[in-house]
């Protein structure tokens, strides 16, 4: 009898293995990488102006008591086009959006803003992705909510859609 039971052991083990595989296949795919910087002060950076004749961006800009959005984007990024209308709407509601343009050039950026609209109060240029990396951002677009003391309150990965507006406003401390 005992030997009989042991003989079923391999089958039991392999079925357990398959159960793990089955769970693995059905889990929600989530490849987002959350930034470790959320809740911490904005890293120190000074980004030169991305467009000639307009202001760049620096950490110091975020410490004047007014909460802002920090939007990491690029003119070559197709999904970034999709969120411009939503950012424009936020701008109309009085939200200041600071842009960080990753691996971008002034002419391309100019064209991008002319075609889609310009929601940005200022745009800093991040040629080498150094600011992006310092923020703990792993792709474009990503949007960070920065409070008035220059602390990162929230990270939004991917395109900002209409549905994300209330949540962002809440994090900014504004009533919708």
């Amino acid at each position, binding site marked *: 009898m005992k030997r009989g039971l042991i003989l079923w052991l391999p089958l039991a083990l392999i079925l357990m293995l398959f159960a*793990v595989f*089955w769970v693995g*296949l059905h889990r929600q795919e989530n490849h987002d990488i959350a930034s470790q910087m959320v809740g911490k002060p904005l890293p120190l950076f000074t980004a030169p102006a991305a467009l000639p004749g307009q202001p760049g961006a620096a950490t110091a800009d975020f410490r004047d008591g007014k909460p802002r959005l920090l939007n990491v984007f690029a003119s070559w990024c197709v999904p970034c086009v999709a969120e411009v209308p939503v950012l424009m709407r936020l701008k109309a509601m009085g939200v200041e959006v600071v842009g960080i343009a990753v691996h971008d050039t002034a002419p391309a950026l100019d064209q991008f803003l002319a075609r889609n609209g310009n929601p940005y109060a200022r745009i800093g240029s991040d040629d080498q992705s150094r600011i992006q990396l310092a923020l703990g951002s792993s792709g474009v677009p990503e949007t960070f909510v920065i409070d008035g003391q220059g602390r990162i309150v929230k990270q939004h990965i991917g395109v900002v859609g209409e549905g994300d507006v209330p949540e962002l406003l809440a994090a900014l401390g504004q009533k919708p």
Partner: protein
Amino acid sequence: MIAEAGLAALWFAAALALAQLVLGAMATSDARAALRASIAPVAVVQALFVAISFFCLIAVFARSDMSVLLVAANSHSAKPMIYKISGTWGNHEGSMLMWVAILGVAGATIALFERKLRADTKVATLAAQGAIALGFYAFLLIASNPFARITGVIEGQGLNPLLQDPGLAFHPPTLYAGYVGMSAAFSFAVGALVTRNVGPEFARAMRPWILGAWIFLTIGITAGSYWAYYTLGWGGWWFWDPVENASLMPWLAATALIHSVTVLATRDGLRAWTIMLAVLAFSMSMVGTFLVRSGVLTSVHSFAVDPQRGLFILELLAVYIGGALTLFALRVGTVSEGTRFDPFSREAALVANNLLLTVILIVVLAGTLYPLALEGFTGAKISVGAPYFNSVAGPLALVLMLIMAMGPMLRWRSDRPGLLLRRVAPAVVVGAIALALLIALAGPIGILPLFGLTVAALVAVASVAPLWKRNLTRTPLFTYGMVIAHLGCAVSIAGMASEGAFTKENLVAVKVGETQPIGPFAVTFAGLRELPGPNYAALEGVLLVAKGTGKPFIMAPQLRQFRDPPMLTNHAAIRTFWNGQLYLTIGEKEIDGRWLLRMWWKPFVTLIWLGGAMIALGGALALLGRVRRDLFAGRRVGAPA
């Protein structure tokens, strides 16, 4: 037209696989023995059709027929011809078709050439092969049709540049041949269980297939390791990546199986265990295919992710492996134990070897799947890396090596410890001398490399001991095979330990004209030049390397920017010396205009792959020796050997 012909051939092959399964299952019973003659032709014609289907797919890839979805998604008309052809199996659907094509050819080979096995066992074996093939045909035809058409595409999307490498063009076929060989062993095991015919003759019939599969797996793993080493530009030769582990696990099971099947063939022992291992080896091959193809694990090798397909393969696996293990549990109780042996004997050493290999297999399996299980149940993301595998599997592997050193010196059935001691004494003395020298001269090199080199020295001496005082011209070929394979293990371990202990690394940012040291060399950054490639543009660093006051030579690592798809790859410059390899890569440009150089001096690293090649060669000699003896004995006596 070619695509449609290929699809039609695939349907025919599937129908024939069904016939092979049904006819085979019916003919297993002696009452319908008349049906048995029909199985072999069915198996052969099935192989023919699936081969035609596979060649049709190669043809559409070679002609860059962009109206076929698979070609458009994975090929590009500007690719060199060899990569157009290797692109056939560089993707999910094509690789599955290749898998089942090799399976079909294996089935035909069994049908045509297998003479040792009892007729009913052979028929049941072929029925099992038909069942496996049928599942994969269903998978191809229902869930991944390689011949699906698409309209309006003029140019393809290209093949991942990392895969555009001559070594990799032949890497998947090699591994697949190994996996399919394991499926033959599995079918033999199922056939033997169904017909209650587990014994030496079954073991002898199964052995060439296991040996063949094992040789292919050994070559595949060795070549894959070297490929990762020279194309990824990280200087490492084994990353414990899930996909690497997926190829290592069936190899471990197959290694155990080769040894247990020898006990069954020569001493009629370990019957149930051998059946169990045959099922396990095939399960591990299939789990490997599943892990790579389903996207259930993320790794550097990850391919297309499609949970529906993953589920399909998983269900197939559950049917085959679950079915075989149920059969095992029901039937193996009726298989008698076979011949008994003494706890101090060659059989016992082989049992210990088997157990250790199985434990290492479980260690690797657990480490590979733990992150998956944890994420599935708790959502936490972790990764299990080299520290776990090295510190757990490393010592076990060294103990395994010591048993391997002693095994061939033990007698079958029963032996005396005193006699063994006298036989292993020279090897132990050499090992002790190596250990003393290392402690005295090499400085602190880490415990695992230290014992690795010691064990390598001991095993090297012990593995040639079976040839001691023998007439070398009358020693059978498979004994030479064993000696060379065991020696290969020592060589490979020596390479791994030496690489771990003595590698020098230097990561520097350099200006043009600057000189930096690495190991015994001085490397001068002479400048950069741009070079056009067939489908990429390369930026090449020109490095002048000199050893001492010797004549300097040029080494030129490249950064390659591929166009379709756009991707930047790092092409290392490697120079091999008798005592190691110099490995140089060039990285990004720093802001201040300096370039990142990564340099390694790896003493005796080449021994790792030389050892792997020796292990495969040993397997090939053993296979040749067995097949030759079988044919010779068969002709002379007209009876099984």
